[in-house]
C-alpha cells in the first residue's frame, strides 16, 4: 500500500519536470512507435477476439498486446508507459482475467460439471458471435496474459544493477 501511494506521488511530481524529450530513445524511434503502437494494440485485440475462427487465440493476442505496451516502455521510458496503463490497473486486469476464467468455469447449473461448455444450444458456427463460452474464455486469457507480461516486464526493469545502500 505504501508503495502505490509513493509511486503516484512520484508520477505527479516527475512528469511536469521531465518533458518527454529527455528520457527514452531518439525522436525517430519515438515517432515510429507513436504511429505503430495503436495498430499493434488493435491487432492484438483482433487476434484474441477472432481466436475461435482463425488461427490465433487468447495467448497470441495477449502476447501481442503485451508487446505493444512493451514498445512504449522501450521507446518512451517507464514513466510514460505507466501513465498510459498504471501498475495497479495492470495488476487489476491480470487478476480480473483469472477471475473471469473462474467465474465462467463456475457458472451454470448443478447438472453441468465445472469448467464445462455450458451453453446448451450453440449459436451459428463460423461467425464472430458464436454462442459458446470459448470467446469469453479467449477474452479472459487475453487479459491475463497481456497484463501479466507487462507487469513482469515492469518489475524486471525496476531491478537496478547496484543495490543502493
Amino acid at each position: 500500500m505504501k508503495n502505490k501511494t509513493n509511486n503516484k506521488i512520484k508520477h505527479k511530481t516527475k512528469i511536469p519536470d521531465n518533458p518527454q524529450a529527455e528520457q527514452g530513445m531518439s525522436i525517430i524511434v519515438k515517432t515510429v512507435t507513436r504511429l505503430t503502437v495503436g495498430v499493434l494494440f488493435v491487432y492484438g485485440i483482433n487476434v484474441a477476439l477472432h481466436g475461435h475462427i482463425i488461427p490465433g487465440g487468447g495467448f497470441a493476442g495477449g502476447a501481442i498486446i503485451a508487446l505493444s505496451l512493451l514498445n512504449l516502455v522501450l521507446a518512451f521510458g517507464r514513466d510514460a508507459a505507466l501513465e498510459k496503463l498504471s501498475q495497479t490497473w495492470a495488476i487489476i486486469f491480470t487478476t480480473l482475467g483469472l477471475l473471469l476464467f473462474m467465474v465462467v468455469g463456475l457458472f451454470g447449473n448443478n447438472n453441468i460439471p465445472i469448467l464445462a461448455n455450458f451453453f446448451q444450444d450453440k449459436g451459428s458456427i463460423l461467425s464472430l458471435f458464436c454462442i459458446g463460452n470459448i470467446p469469453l474464455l479467449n477474452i479472459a486469457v487475453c487479459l491475463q496474459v497481456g497484463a501479466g507480461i507487462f507487469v513482469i516486464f515492469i518489475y524486471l526493469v525496476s531491478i537496478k544493477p547496484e543495490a543502493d545502500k
Partner: protein
Amino acid sequence: MIYFLCFILFSIGIYGVLVKRNIIKLIISTMILNYAVYILLVLMGFRWQGQVPVFVSDQEINFMVDPLPQSMVMVAMIVGLAVTALLVAVAMRLYQQFKTFDIKEIIEIKTKKPEVDNNA
C-alpha cells in the same frame, strides 16, 4: 531420423546445464531444452498431406494435422516464458548481491562470508 535431431538439440541443452558456469548461459540452455521439447511434440503430430486444423466453410478438408500436441505446446509456451522471466529476475538479484554471474564465485563468496547473504 528427424527425431534424432531433436534429441541432439535436447542433449546440447543438457550439456549447457551441466557444464556452463555463467547464469545467463544456464538460462539460455534451459530455453534450448524448451525448444527441443516443443519441436519434438509438434513433429510427432505431423501428418503427410495434412492441413491446418481449422474448418473452413466452403471447402472440404479430409486430412488434418494432429491438434492435440499443438494445444499442449501452446499452453507450455506461456509457462516457459513466465519461468524464464522468473529465472532472469533471480539472476539479476544475484548480480545485485554478489556483482558476478559466475556460480563458482558466488559459492566462494558465500562460504567466506556467510553473514552477508540474508536476503539474496
